[in-house]
Protein backbone atom coordinates (compact mmCIF):
# COMPACT_ATOMS: atom_id res chain seq x y z
CA UNK A 1 0.00 0.00 0.00
CA UNK A 2 1.20 3.46 -0.80
CA UNK A 3 0.66 6.56 1.29
CA UNK A 4 1.33 10.01 -0.08
CA UNK A 5 1.29 12.90 2.37
CA UNK A 6 1.32 16.63 1.63
CA UNK A 7 3.44 16.31 -1.50
CA UNK A 8 4.59 19.60 -3.05
CA UNK A 9 6.54 20.40 -6.16
CA UNK A 10 7.08 23.75 -7.83
CA UNK A 11 8.84 24.54 -11.09
CA UNK A 12 9.90 28.15 -10.64
CA UNK A 13 6.67 30.01 -9.92
CA UNK A 14 4.43 27.20 -11.09
CA UNK A 15 3.19 25.00 -8.28
CA UNK A 16 2.67 21.81 -10.21
CA UNK A 17 1.63 19.70 -7.23
CA UNK A 18 0.15 21.25 -4.09
CA UNK A 19 -0.35 19.41 -0.82
CA UNK A 20 -1.30 16.20 -2.50
CA UNK A 21 -2.26 13.41 -0.11
CA UNK A 22 -3.83 10.09 -0.90
CA UNK A 23 -3.59 6.39 -0.23
CA UNK A 24 -3.63 3.55 -2.67
CA UNK A 25 -4.81 0.28 -1.22
CA UNK A 26 -2.99 -2.96 -1.90
CA UNK A 27 -4.20 -5.06 -4.83
CA UNK A 28 -6.44 -2.25 -5.96
CA UNK A 29 -6.29 0.01 -8.97
CA UNK A 30 -6.04 3.65 -8.01
CA UNK A 31 -6.22 6.10 -10.88
CA UNK A 32 -5.24 9.71 -11.10
CA UNK A 33 -7.20 11.68 -13.63
CA UNK A 34 -7.48 15.34 -14.46
CA UNK A 35 -7.28 17.72 -17.38
CA UNK A 36 -3.96 18.51 -19.07
CA UNK A 37 -1.65 20.39 -16.73
CA UNK A 38 -3.43 19.15 -13.62
CA UNK A 39 -0.16 17.81 -12.22
CA UNK A 40 -0.83 14.10 -12.71
CA UNK A 41 2.46 13.35 -14.38
CA UNK A 42 4.40 15.45 -11.90
CA UNK A 43 2.79 13.61 -9.02
CA UNK A 44 3.60 10.35 -10.73
CA UNK A 45 7.23 11.32 -11.26
CA UNK A 46 7.54 12.39 -7.63
CA UNK A 47 6.40 8.99 -6.43
CA UNK A 48 8.56 7.11 -8.94
CA UNK A 49 11.72 9.00 -7.96
CA UNK A 50 12.08 10.65 -11.36
CA UNK A 51 11.60 14.02 -9.65
CA UNK A 52 12.43 15.09 -6.12
CA UNK A 53 9.57 16.61 -4.11
CA UNK A 54 10.03 19.99 -2.42
CA UNK A 55 8.21 18.68 0.62
CA UNK A 56 5.96 15.84 1.69
CA UNK A 57 6.46 12.12 2.06
CA UNK A 58 5.79 8.94 0.14
CA UNK A 59 5.44 5.67 2.03
CA UNK A 60 5.45 2.19 0.54
CA UNK A 61 4.22 -0.55 2.85
CA UNK A 62 5.18 1.51 5.88
CA UNK A 63 8.65 2.41 4.59
CA UNK A 64 9.51 6.01 3.79
CA UNK A 65 10.67 6.10 0.17
CA UNK A 66 10.53 9.85 -0.40
CA UNK A 67 13.10 11.12 -2.86
CA UNK A 68 14.90 7.82 -3.36
CA UNK A 69 16.68 7.27 -6.64
CA UNK A 70 14.80 5.28 -9.28
CA UNK A 71 17.20 2.33 -9.09
CA UNK A 72 16.70 2.09 -5.32
CA UNK A 73 12.93 2.28 -5.73
CA UNK A 74 12.98 -0.43 -8.35
CA UNK A 75 14.78 -2.70 -5.90
CA UNK A 76 12.15 -1.94 -3.27
CA UNK A 77 9.45 -3.04 -5.66
CA UNK A 78 8.33 0.05 -7.53
CA UNK A 79 7.99 -0.50 -11.27
CA UNK A 80 6.84 2.18 -13.65
CA UNK A 81 5.98 2.41 -17.31
CA UNK A 82 6.33 5.53 -19.38
CA UNK A 83 3.88 7.66 -21.27
CA UNK A 84 6.17 7.65 -24.29
CA UNK A 85 7.37 4.09 -24.82
CA UNK A 86 10.72 3.78 -23.14
CA UNK A 87 12.46 0.47 -23.77
CA UNK A 88 15.73 -0.90 -25.11
CA UNK A 89 14.80 -0.53 -28.75
CA UNK A 90 18.03 -1.99 -30.06
CA UNK A 91 17.72 -5.15 -27.97
CA UNK A 92 15.40 -8.08 -28.51
CA UNK A 93 12.10 -8.40 -26.73
CA UNK A 94 13.52 -11.34 -24.83
CA UNK A 95 16.55 -9.36 -23.72
CA UNK A 96 14.39 -6.44 -22.55
CA UNK A 97 12.44 -8.72 -20.25
CA UNK A 98 15.50 -10.78 -19.32
CA UNK A 99 17.30 -7.65 -18.11
CA UNK A 100 14.42 -6.89 -15.79
CA UNK A 101 14.50 -10.46 -14.48
CA UNK A 102 18.26 -10.30 -14.10
CA UNK A 103 18.01 -7.32 -11.77
CA UNK A 104 16.41 -9.59 -9.16
CA UNK A 105 19.53 -11.77 -9.09
CA UNK A 106 22.47 -11.32 -6.74
CA UNK A 107 25.07 -8.97 -8.15
CA UNK A 108 27.75 -11.54 -7.41
CA UNK A 109 26.33 -13.70 -10.20
CA UNK A 110 26.88 -10.98 -12.80
CA UNK A 111 30.20 -12.35 -13.98
CA UNK A 112 28.71 -15.73 -14.77
CA UNK A 113 28.46 -16.24 -18.50
CA UNK A 114 25.13 -15.08 -19.81
CA UNK A 115 24.04 -18.43 -21.23
CA UNK A 116 24.66 -20.02 -17.82
CA UNK A 117 22.67 -17.39 -15.96
CA UNK A 118 19.64 -19.63 -16.18
CA UNK A 119 17.06 -18.18 -13.81
CA UNK A 120 16.56 -14.83 -15.57
CA UNK A 121 16.14 -16.68 -18.85
CA UNK A 122 13.47 -18.95 -17.46
CA UNK A 123 11.80 -15.97 -15.85
CA UNK A 124 11.84 -14.03 -19.13
CA UNK A 125 10.39 -16.96 -21.06
CA UNK A 126 7.58 -17.29 -18.53
CA UNK A 127 6.76 -13.58 -18.67
CA UNK A 128 6.81 -13.52 -22.47
CA UNK A 129 4.45 -16.49 -22.56
CA UNK A 130 2.15 -14.83 -20.08
CA UNK A 131 1.93 -11.67 -22.14
CA UNK A 132 1.62 -13.51 -25.45
CA UNK A 133 4.93 -12.21 -26.73
CA UNK A 134 6.77 -15.50 -27.39
CA UNK A 135 6.59 -15.04 -31.14
CA UNK A 136 8.24 -11.65 -30.81
CA UNK A 137 10.99 -12.88 -28.48
CA UNK A 138 13.86 -12.52 -30.93
CA UNK A 139 12.71 -9.37 -32.66
CA UNK A 140 14.22 -6.03 -31.82
CA UNK A 141 11.76 -4.08 -29.72
CA UNK A 142 12.29 -1.16 -32.10
CA UNK A 143 10.68 -3.25 -34.84
CA UNK A 144 7.53 -4.18 -32.91
CA UNK A 145 4.18 -2.55 -33.47
CA UNK A 146 3.20 0.22 -31.09
CA UNK A 147 0.69 -2.02 -29.35
CA UNK A 148 3.26 -4.77 -28.83
CA UNK A 149 5.76 -2.24 -27.49
CA UNK A 150 3.22 -1.06 -24.92
CA UNK A 151 2.71 -4.67 -23.97
CA UNK A 152 6.45 -5.18 -23.55
CA UNK A 153 6.52 -2.16 -21.24
CA UNK A 154 4.07 -3.86 -18.92
CA UNK A 155 5.86 -7.20 -19.25
CA UNK A 156 9.13 -5.55 -18.21
CA UNK A 157 7.41 -3.98 -15.20
CA UNK A 158 5.87 -7.28 -14.13
CA UNK A 159 9.23 -9.05 -14.53
CA UNK A 160 10.45 -6.84 -11.69
CA UNK A 161 7.84 -8.48 -9.41
CA UNK A 162 6.60 -5.10 -8.21
CA UNK A 163 4.61 -4.32 -5.10
CA UNK A 164 3.64 -1.05 -6.72
CA UNK A 165 3.01 -0.93 -10.44
CA UNK A 166 2.79 2.57 -11.87
CA UNK A 167 1.32 2.88 -15.34
CA UNK A 168 1.62 6.19 -17.11
CA UNK A 169 -1.06 6.32 -19.83
CA UNK A 170 -0.56 2.72 -20.91
CA UNK A 171 -3.02 2.99 -23.77
CA UNK A 172 -1.56 6.19 -25.17
CA UNK A 173 -1.73 6.11 -28.96
CA UNK A 174 -3.77 2.90 -29.12
CA UNK A 175 -6.75 1.99 -31.22
CA UNK A 176 -10.04 1.30 -29.41
CA UNK A 177 -9.70 -2.46 -29.91
CA UNK A 178 -6.17 -2.44 -28.54
CA UNK A 179 -7.36 -0.37 -25.60
CA UNK A 180 -10.03 -2.95 -24.84
CA UNK A 181 -7.37 -5.65 -24.87
CA UNK A 182 -5.34 -3.62 -22.43
CA UNK A 183 -8.30 -3.18 -20.16
CA UNK A 184 -8.41 -6.94 -19.77
CA UNK A 185 -4.65 -7.18 -19.41
CA UNK A 186 -4.48 -4.66 -16.58
CA UNK A 187 -7.46 -6.25 -14.86
CA UNK A 188 -5.57 -9.53 -14.87
CA UNK A 189 -2.71 -7.91 -12.98
CA UNK A 190 -4.74 -6.46 -10.15
CA UNK A 191 -4.20 -9.35 -7.79
CA UNK A 192 -0.43 -9.10 -8.05
CA UNK A 193 0.42 -5.53 -7.19
CA UNK A 194 -0.91 -2.23 -6.05
CA UNK A 195 -1.60 -0.39 -9.28
CA UNK A 196 -1.39 3.34 -9.73
CA UNK A 197 -2.66 4.50 -13.09
CA UNK A 198 -2.67 7.74 -15.00
CA UNK A 199 -4.94 7.57 -17.99
CA UNK A 200 -6.71 9.91 -20.36
CA UNK A 201 -9.26 7.40 -21.51
CA UNK A 202 -12.06 8.04 -19.02
CA UNK A 203 -14.02 4.93 -19.92
CA UNK A 204 -10.96 2.79 -19.28
CA UNK A 205 -10.37 4.47 -15.93
CA UNK A 206 -13.95 4.00 -14.85
CA UNK A 207 -13.93 0.36 -15.85
CA UNK A 208 -10.61 -0.47 -14.21
CA UNK A 209 -10.37 1.58 -11.07
CA UNK A 210 -11.37 0.82 -7.54
CA UNK A 211 -10.53 4.33 -6.49
CA UNK A 212 -10.17 7.51 -8.51
CA UNK A 213 -8.32 10.68 -7.60
CA UNK A 214 -9.20 13.76 -9.57
CA UNK A 215 -6.54 16.45 -9.81
CA UNK A 216 -7.07 19.98 -10.94
CA UNK A 217 -4.44 22.72 -11.09
CA UNK A 218 -2.02 20.78 -8.94
CA UNK A 219 -4.47 19.94 -6.22
CA UNK A 220 -6.62 17.00 -5.37
CA UNK A 221 -10.13 18.06 -6.30
CA UNK A 222 -12.02 14.94 -5.41
CA UNK A 223 -11.56 11.28 -4.68
CA UNK A 224 -13.83 8.31 -4.47
CA UNK A 225 -15.16 5.31 -6.31
CA UNK A 226 -15.68 5.63 -10.07
CA UNK A 227 -19.43 5.99 -9.56
CA UNK A 228 -19.09 8.80 -7.07
CA UNK A 229 -16.56 10.54 -9.29
CA UNK A 230 -18.90 10.25 -12.21
CA UNK A 231 -21.72 11.68 -10.16
CA UNK A 232 -19.79 14.58 -8.71
CA UNK A 233 -20.81 17.93 -10.18
CA UNK A 234 -17.47 19.37 -9.11
CA UNK A 235 -15.56 16.85 -11.20
CA UNK A 236 -17.90 17.17 -14.11
CA UNK A 237 -17.36 20.87 -14.20
CA UNK A 238 -13.58 20.68 -13.93
CA UNK A 239 -12.91 17.73 -16.11
CA UNK A 240 -15.43 15.30 -17.36
CA UNK A 241 -17.74 17.84 -18.89
CA UNK A 242 -14.96 19.45 -20.85
CA UNK A 243 -13.48 16.17 -21.89
CA UNK A 244 -16.75 14.63 -22.97
CA UNK A 245 -17.60 17.72 -24.92
CA UNK A 246 -14.28 17.40 -26.69
CA UNK A 247 -14.89 13.76 -27.52
Amino acid sequence: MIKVRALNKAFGGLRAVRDLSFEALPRCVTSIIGPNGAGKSTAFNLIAGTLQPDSGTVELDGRDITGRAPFALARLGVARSFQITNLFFGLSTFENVRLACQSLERRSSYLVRLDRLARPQACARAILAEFGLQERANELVGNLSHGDQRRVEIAVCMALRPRLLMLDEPTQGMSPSETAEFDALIKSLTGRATILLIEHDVDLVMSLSDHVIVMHQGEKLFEGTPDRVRASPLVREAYLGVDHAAV
Partner: protein
Amino acid sequence: MLQPSIPPVEPRPSLNTAAKLNVGDRLLRALYPPRANAWQLRWLGFAMLVLAAIFPWLGGPFYTRLAIESFLFGATALSVDILLGYAGLLSLGQAAYFGLAAYISALMYLHVTQSFWLVLVAVVTAVAVFSLVLGAVAIRAKGVYFALITFGAAEILSKIAHNTRAIGGSDGLIGIPVPRITLLPGVTIDLQNNFVFYYAVLGVLVLIYIGTRRILDSGFGAVLRAIRDNSDRVPYLGYNSFWYKLLAYIMAAQVAAVGGLIYPLLRGFVAPHLFGFEVSTKAVVMSLVGGVGTLLGPLAGSVIVTFLESAVGSYTERHLLVLGVIFIVFVMFLPDGLIGLARRLSASRGKAAP
Protein backbone atom coordinates in the same frame (compact mmCIF):
# COMPACT_ATOMS: atom_id res chain seq x y z
CA MET B 1 28.54 11.58 -33.32
CA LEU B 2 29.56 7.97 -33.46
CA GLN B 3 26.53 6.90 -31.59
CA PRO B 4 23.16 7.57 -33.13
CA SER B 5 20.41 8.68 -30.88
CA ILE B 6 17.58 6.23 -31.12
CA PRO B 7 14.92 7.61 -33.41
CA PRO B 8 11.51 8.22 -31.87
CA VAL B 9 9.45 5.15 -31.60
CA GLU B 10 6.75 5.51 -34.12
CA PRO B 11 5.86 2.20 -35.66
CA ARG B 12 8.30 1.93 -38.48
CA PRO B 13 9.10 -0.57 -41.20
CA SER B 14 10.96 -3.66 -40.15
CA LEU B 15 14.72 -3.45 -40.41
CA ASN B 16 14.77 -7.05 -41.50
CA THR B 17 13.14 -6.39 -44.81
CA ALA B 18 15.56 -5.18 -47.41
CA ALA B 19 13.34 -2.15 -47.91
CA LYS B 20 14.78 1.34 -48.14
CA LEU B 21 16.67 2.15 -44.99
CA ASN B 22 17.29 5.70 -43.91
CA VAL B 23 20.59 6.73 -42.39
CA GLY B 24 19.30 6.38 -38.85
CA ASP B 25 18.14 2.83 -39.48
CA ARG B 26 21.43 1.95 -41.07
CA LEU B 27 23.34 3.25 -38.08
CA LEU B 28 20.99 1.46 -35.74
CA ARG B 29 21.47 -1.81 -37.53
CA ALA B 30 25.19 -1.24 -37.67
CA LEU B 31 25.57 -0.66 -33.98
CA TYR B 32 23.16 -3.37 -32.93
CA PRO B 33 24.03 -6.30 -35.12
CA PRO B 34 21.90 -9.38 -34.74
CA ARG B 35 23.66 -11.87 -32.54
CA ALA B 36 22.82 -14.81 -34.74
CA ASN B 37 26.10 -14.82 -36.64
CA ALA B 38 28.45 -15.05 -33.71
CA TRP B 39 30.03 -18.06 -35.39
CA GLN B 40 31.22 -15.82 -38.21
CA LEU B 41 33.08 -13.74 -35.66
CA ARG B 42 34.63 -16.90 -34.32
CA TRP B 43 35.86 -17.95 -37.76
CA LEU B 44 37.17 -14.48 -38.44
CA GLY B 45 39.01 -14.49 -35.14
CA PHE B 46 40.51 -17.85 -35.95
CA ALA B 47 41.64 -16.69 -39.38
CA MET B 48 43.20 -13.58 -37.88
CA LEU B 49 45.03 -15.66 -35.31
CA VAL B 50 46.46 -17.99 -37.96
CA LEU B 51 47.60 -15.01 -40.01
CA ALA B 52 49.17 -13.44 -36.95
CA ALA B 53 50.89 -16.70 -36.03
CA ILE B 54 52.71 -17.07 -39.36
CA PHE B 55 53.40 -13.39 -39.91
CA PRO B 56 56.94 -13.10 -38.45
CA TRP B 57 58.19 -15.71 -40.95
CA LEU B 58 56.90 -13.64 -43.83
CA GLY B 59 57.44 -10.11 -42.61
CA GLY B 60 61.09 -9.68 -41.65
CA PRO B 61 62.31 -7.77 -38.57
CA PHE B 62 61.01 -4.32 -39.49
CA TYR B 63 57.48 -5.46 -40.13
CA THR B 64 57.55 -7.83 -37.20
CA ARG B 65 58.29 -4.91 -34.90
CA LEU B 66 55.66 -2.82 -36.65
CA ALA B 67 53.19 -5.64 -36.05
CA ILE B 68 54.11 -5.62 -32.35
CA GLU B 69 53.43 -1.89 -32.28
CA SER B 70 50.07 -2.44 -33.94
CA PHE B 71 49.22 -5.01 -31.26
CA LEU B 72 50.05 -2.50 -28.52
CA PHE B 73 47.83 0.13 -30.10
CA GLY B 74 45.32 -2.65 -30.68
CA ALA B 75 44.90 -2.95 -26.92
CA THR B 76 44.09 0.75 -26.79
CA ALA B 77 41.61 0.33 -29.63
CA LEU B 78 40.04 -2.56 -27.74
CA SER B 79 39.66 -0.31 -24.72
CA VAL B 80 37.81 2.22 -26.86
CA ASP B 81 35.48 -0.54 -27.99
CA ILE B 82 34.76 -1.65 -24.42
CA LEU B 83 33.56 1.88 -23.70
CA LEU B 84 31.94 2.79 -27.01
CA GLY B 85 30.68 -0.57 -28.14
CA TYR B 86 29.33 -1.70 -24.78
CA ALA B 87 28.73 1.23 -22.44
CA GLY B 88 28.09 3.77 -25.18
CA LEU B 89 30.80 6.11 -23.89
CA LEU B 90 33.09 7.81 -26.40
CA SER B 91 36.46 8.36 -24.75
CA LEU B 92 38.87 10.66 -26.53
CA GLY B 93 41.47 10.19 -23.84
CA GLN B 94 42.49 6.54 -23.75
CA ALA B 95 46.04 7.76 -24.46
CA ALA B 96 46.11 8.94 -20.85
CA TYR B 97 46.43 5.32 -19.78
CA PHE B 98 48.73 4.32 -22.59
CA GLY B 99 51.04 7.20 -21.68
CA LEU B 100 50.75 6.76 -17.94
CA ALA B 101 51.70 3.10 -18.19
CA ALA B 102 54.53 3.87 -20.62
CA TYR B 103 56.05 6.54 -18.37
CA ILE B 104 55.73 4.53 -15.17
CA SER B 105 57.25 1.52 -16.84
CA ALA B 106 60.08 3.59 -18.40
CA LEU B 107 60.89 5.38 -15.15
CA MET B 108 60.94 2.18 -13.16
CA TYR B 109 63.25 0.37 -15.59
CA LEU B 110 65.58 3.38 -15.60
CA HIS B 111 65.68 4.09 -11.88
CA VAL B 112 64.03 1.42 -9.75
CA THR B 113 63.97 -2.15 -10.90
CA GLN B 114 64.49 -4.56 -13.76
CA SER B 115 61.62 -6.75 -12.66
CA PHE B 116 58.78 -6.74 -15.17
CA TRP B 117 56.39 -8.07 -12.55
CA LEU B 118 57.06 -5.22 -10.10
CA VAL B 119 56.50 -2.76 -12.93
CA LEU B 120 53.28 -4.55 -13.82
CA VAL B 121 51.98 -4.25 -10.27
CA ALA B 122 52.90 -0.56 -10.13
CA VAL B 123 51.22 0.17 -13.45
CA VAL B 124 48.04 -1.73 -12.62
CA THR B 125 47.77 0.07 -9.28
CA ALA B 126 48.46 3.54 -10.67
CA VAL B 127 46.05 3.08 -13.55
CA ALA B 128 43.36 1.71 -11.24
CA VAL B 129 43.62 4.72 -8.93
CA PHE B 130 43.79 7.27 -11.72
CA SER B 131 40.91 5.74 -13.69
CA LEU B 132 38.78 5.44 -10.56
CA VAL B 133 39.15 9.14 -9.82
CA LEU B 134 38.88 10.41 -13.38
CA GLY B 135 36.10 7.95 -14.21
CA ALA B 136 34.04 8.98 -11.19
CA VAL B 137 34.19 12.58 -12.43
CA ALA B 138 33.85 11.99 -16.16
CA ILE B 139 30.98 9.50 -16.01
CA ARG B 140 28.72 12.04 -14.34
CA ALA B 141 28.96 14.05 -17.52
CA LYS B 142 27.00 12.83 -20.49
CA GLY B 143 27.65 12.46 -24.20
CA VAL B 144 30.08 14.93 -25.63
CA TYR B 145 31.06 16.20 -22.19
CA PHE B 146 32.39 12.81 -21.26
CA ALA B 147 34.49 12.88 -24.42
CA LEU B 148 35.75 16.38 -23.56
CA ILE B 149 36.70 15.53 -19.99
CA THR B 150 38.60 12.41 -20.99
CA PHE B 151 40.28 14.35 -23.78
CA GLY B 152 41.20 17.18 -21.42
CA ALA B 153 42.65 14.85 -18.81
CA ALA B 154 44.94 13.21 -21.36
CA GLU B 155 46.06 16.61 -22.61
CA ILE B 156 46.87 17.74 -19.08
CA LEU B 157 49.04 14.66 -18.56
CA SER B 158 50.72 15.33 -21.87
CA LYS B 159 51.51 18.92 -20.85
CA ILE B 160 52.78 17.80 -17.46
CA ALA B 161 55.12 15.30 -19.12
CA HIS B 162 56.14 17.93 -21.62
CA ASN B 163 57.06 20.50 -18.96
CA THR B 164 58.61 18.34 -16.26
CA ARG B 165 62.38 18.17 -16.72
CA ALA B 166 62.74 15.34 -14.19
CA ILE B 167 60.93 13.00 -16.56
CA GLY B 168 62.65 14.23 -19.67
CA GLY B 169 60.46 17.17 -20.64
CA SER B 170 59.69 17.41 -24.34
CA ASP B 171 62.49 14.97 -25.21
CA GLY B 172 60.96 12.19 -23.16
CA LEU B 173 63.04 9.38 -21.72
CA ILE B 174 65.51 7.44 -23.84
CA GLY B 175 67.76 4.44 -23.42
CA ILE B 176 65.29 2.29 -21.54
CA PRO B 177 66.90 -1.08 -20.87
CA VAL B 178 65.06 -4.19 -22.01
CA PRO B 179 64.60 -6.52 -19.04
CA ARG B 180 64.61 -10.28 -19.06
CA ILE B 181 61.20 -11.41 -17.94
CA THR B 182 61.11 -14.45 -15.71
CA LEU B 183 57.90 -16.23 -16.52
CA LEU B 184 58.53 -19.22 -14.27
CA PRO B 185 61.67 -20.10 -12.37
CA GLY B 186 64.06 -21.14 -15.13
CA VAL B 187 61.86 -19.89 -17.98
CA THR B 188 62.78 -16.41 -19.14
CA ILE B 189 61.45 -14.39 -22.03
CA ASP B 190 64.20 -12.75 -24.02
CA LEU B 191 62.71 -9.67 -25.61
CA GLN B 192 65.89 -8.95 -27.60
CA ASN B 193 64.69 -11.69 -29.89
CA ASN B 194 62.03 -10.33 -32.25
CA PHE B 195 60.28 -13.64 -32.61
CA VAL B 196 60.02 -14.13 -28.86
CA PHE B 197 58.87 -10.55 -28.37
CA TYR B 198 56.28 -10.91 -31.11
CA TYR B 199 54.75 -14.09 -29.83
CA ALA B 200 54.81 -12.88 -26.23
CA VAL B 201 52.85 -9.75 -27.16
CA LEU B 202 50.50 -11.72 -29.41
CA GLY B 203 49.87 -14.09 -26.52
CA VAL B 204 49.14 -11.22 -24.18
CA LEU B 205 46.76 -9.66 -26.70
CA VAL B 206 44.91 -12.93 -27.22
CA LEU B 207 44.56 -13.35 -23.46
CA ILE B 208 43.24 -9.80 -23.10
CA TYR B 209 40.80 -10.34 -25.93
CA ILE B 210 39.48 -13.59 -24.48
CA GLY B 211 39.32 -12.11 -21.00
CA THR B 212 37.47 -9.03 -22.19
CA ARG B 213 35.06 -11.07 -24.25
CA ARG B 214 34.43 -13.37 -21.33
CA ILE B 215 33.80 -10.53 -18.88
CA LEU B 216 31.44 -8.75 -21.26
CA ASP B 217 29.57 -11.96 -22.15
CA SER B 218 27.99 -11.83 -18.73
CA GLY B 219 25.18 -10.22 -16.81
CA PHE B 220 27.53 -7.29 -16.32
CA GLY B 221 27.99 -6.94 -20.07
CA ALA B 222 24.25 -7.24 -20.60
CA VAL B 223 23.65 -4.26 -18.32
CA LEU B 224 26.31 -2.30 -20.22
CA ARG B 225 24.56 -3.03 -23.52
CA ALA B 226 21.34 -1.81 -21.97
CA ILE B 227 23.08 1.38 -20.90
CA ARG B 228 24.36 1.92 -24.42
CA ASP B 229 20.91 1.35 -25.84
CA ASN B 230 18.93 3.57 -23.48
CA SER B 231 20.76 4.74 -20.38
CA ASP B 232 17.74 6.66 -19.04
CA ARG B 233 15.70 3.48 -18.75
CA VAL B 234 18.29 1.42 -16.90
CA PRO B 235 17.71 2.82 -13.36
CA TYR B 236 14.03 1.84 -13.53
CA LEU B 237 15.10 -1.79 -13.72
CA GLY B 238 16.98 -1.47 -10.44
CA TYR B 239 20.47 -0.95 -11.84
CA ASN B 240 22.65 1.90 -10.64
CA SER B 241 24.24 2.65 -13.99
CA PHE B 242 27.02 4.73 -12.44
CA TRP B 243 28.79 1.66 -11.07
CA TYR B 244 28.49 -0.27 -14.29
CA LYS B 245 29.94 2.57 -16.30
CA LEU B 246 32.69 3.13 -13.75
CA LEU B 247 33.69 -0.54 -13.77
CA ALA B 248 33.71 -0.54 -17.56
CA TYR B 249 35.84 2.60 -17.51
CA ILE B 250 38.37 1.11 -15.11
CA MET B 251 38.47 -2.10 -17.11
CA ALA B 252 39.06 -0.17 -20.34
CA ALA B 253 41.80 1.85 -18.67
CA GLN B 254 43.63 -1.32 -17.68
CA VAL B 255 43.36 -2.70 -21.19
CA ALA B 256 44.67 0.55 -22.70
CA ALA B 257 47.53 0.51 -20.20
CA VAL B 258 48.78 -2.86 -21.46
CA GLY B 259 49.98 -1.21 -24.65
CA GLY B 260 51.82 1.45 -22.69
CA LEU B 261 53.31 -1.11 -20.34
CA ILE B 262 55.12 -2.85 -23.19
CA TYR B 263 55.75 0.08 -25.56
CA PRO B 264 59.01 1.29 -23.92
CA LEU B 265 60.45 -2.20 -24.29
CA LEU B 266 59.77 -2.13 -28.00
CA ARG B 267 60.94 1.37 -28.87
CA GLY B 268 63.36 2.05 -26.00
CA PHE B 269 61.98 5.52 -25.41
CA VAL B 270 58.87 7.34 -24.24
CA ALA B 271 57.79 10.88 -25.07
CA PRO B 272 54.89 13.19 -24.20
CA HIS B 273 53.16 12.46 -27.51
CA LEU B 274 52.18 9.05 -26.10
CA PHE B 275 49.59 10.93 -24.03
CA GLY B 276 48.52 12.86 -27.07
CA PHE B 277 45.35 13.34 -28.98
CA GLU B 278 46.82 11.41 -31.89
CA VAL B 279 47.09 8.20 -29.90
CA SER B 280 43.57 8.59 -28.50
CA THR B 281 41.93 9.34 -31.81
CA LYS B 282 43.91 6.70 -33.61
CA ALA B 283 42.43 4.19 -31.18
CA VAL B 284 38.94 5.44 -32.03
CA VAL B 285 39.63 5.23 -35.78
CA MET B 286 41.05 1.71 -35.44
CA SER B 287 37.98 0.68 -33.52
CA LEU B 288 35.70 2.18 -36.13
CA VAL B 289 37.59 0.69 -39.08
CA GLY B 290 37.34 -2.80 -37.63
CA GLY B 291 33.81 -2.47 -36.31
CA VAL B 292 32.59 -1.00 -33.03
CA GLY B 293 31.00 -3.41 -30.60
CA THR B 294 32.72 -6.51 -31.96
CA LEU B 295 35.93 -6.45 -29.83
CA LEU B 296 37.62 -8.35 -32.65
CA GLY B 297 37.22 -5.52 -35.14
CA PRO B 298 39.39 -3.02 -33.27
CA LEU B 299 42.27 -5.51 -33.24
CA ALA B 300 42.00 -5.96 -36.99
CA GLY B 301 41.58 -2.21 -37.37
CA SER B 302 44.74 -1.49 -35.42
CA VAL B 303 46.83 -3.73 -37.67
CA ILE B 304 45.32 -2.22 -40.80
CA VAL B 305 45.69 1.38 -39.68
CA THR B 306 49.23 0.94 -38.34
CA PHE B 307 50.50 -0.70 -41.54
CA LEU B 308 48.64 1.76 -43.72
CA GLU B 309 50.15 4.63 -41.78
CA SER B 310 53.59 3.19 -42.17
CA ALA B 311 53.09 2.73 -45.91
CA VAL B 312 51.72 6.23 -46.37
CA GLY B 313 54.42 7.64 -44.11
CA SER B 314 57.13 6.59 -46.54
CA TYR B 315 55.60 8.85 -49.20
CA THR B 316 54.40 11.83 -47.21
CA GLU B 317 54.70 13.51 -43.84
CA ARG B 318 50.99 14.06 -43.76
CA HIS B 319 49.86 10.61 -42.70
CA LEU B 320 47.39 12.14 -40.24
CA LEU B 321 45.49 13.52 -43.18
CA VAL B 322 45.03 9.97 -44.43
CA LEU B 323 43.84 8.93 -40.98
CA GLY B 324 41.28 11.72 -41.10
CA VAL B 325 40.02 10.70 -44.51
CA ILE B 326 39.68 7.08 -43.39
CA PHE B 327 37.75 8.24 -40.36
CA ILE B 328 35.31 10.29 -42.44
CA VAL B 329 34.83 7.57 -45.04
CA PHE B 330 34.03 4.96 -42.40
CA VAL B 331 31.69 7.21 -40.41
CA MET B 332 29.78 8.07 -43.58
CA PHE B 333 29.76 4.85 -45.53
CA LEU B 334 30.79 1.98 -43.28
CA PRO B 335 29.75 2.86 -39.74
CA ASP B 336 29.76 -0.80 -38.82
CA GLY B 337 33.35 -1.20 -39.95
CA LEU B 338 34.96 -4.00 -41.92
CA ILE B 339 33.40 -6.71 -39.81
CA GLY B 340 30.00 -5.19 -40.48
CA LEU B 341 30.80 -5.16 -44.18
CA ALA B 342 31.87 -8.79 -44.12
CA ARG B 343 28.73 -9.66 -42.24
CA ARG B 344 26.50 -7.93 -44.76
CA LEU B 345 28.29 -9.52 -47.70
CA SER B 346 27.93 -12.99 -46.26
CA ALA B 347 24.30 -12.31 -45.36
CA SER B 348 23.43 -11.21 -48.88
CA ARG B 349 25.26 -14.19 -50.35
CA GLY B 350 23.30 -16.46 -48.03
CA LYS B 351 20.09 -14.99 -49.39
CA ALA B 352 21.15 -15.29 -53.02
CA ALA B 353 21.82 -19.02 -52.73
CA PRO B 354 18.63 -20.59 -51.39
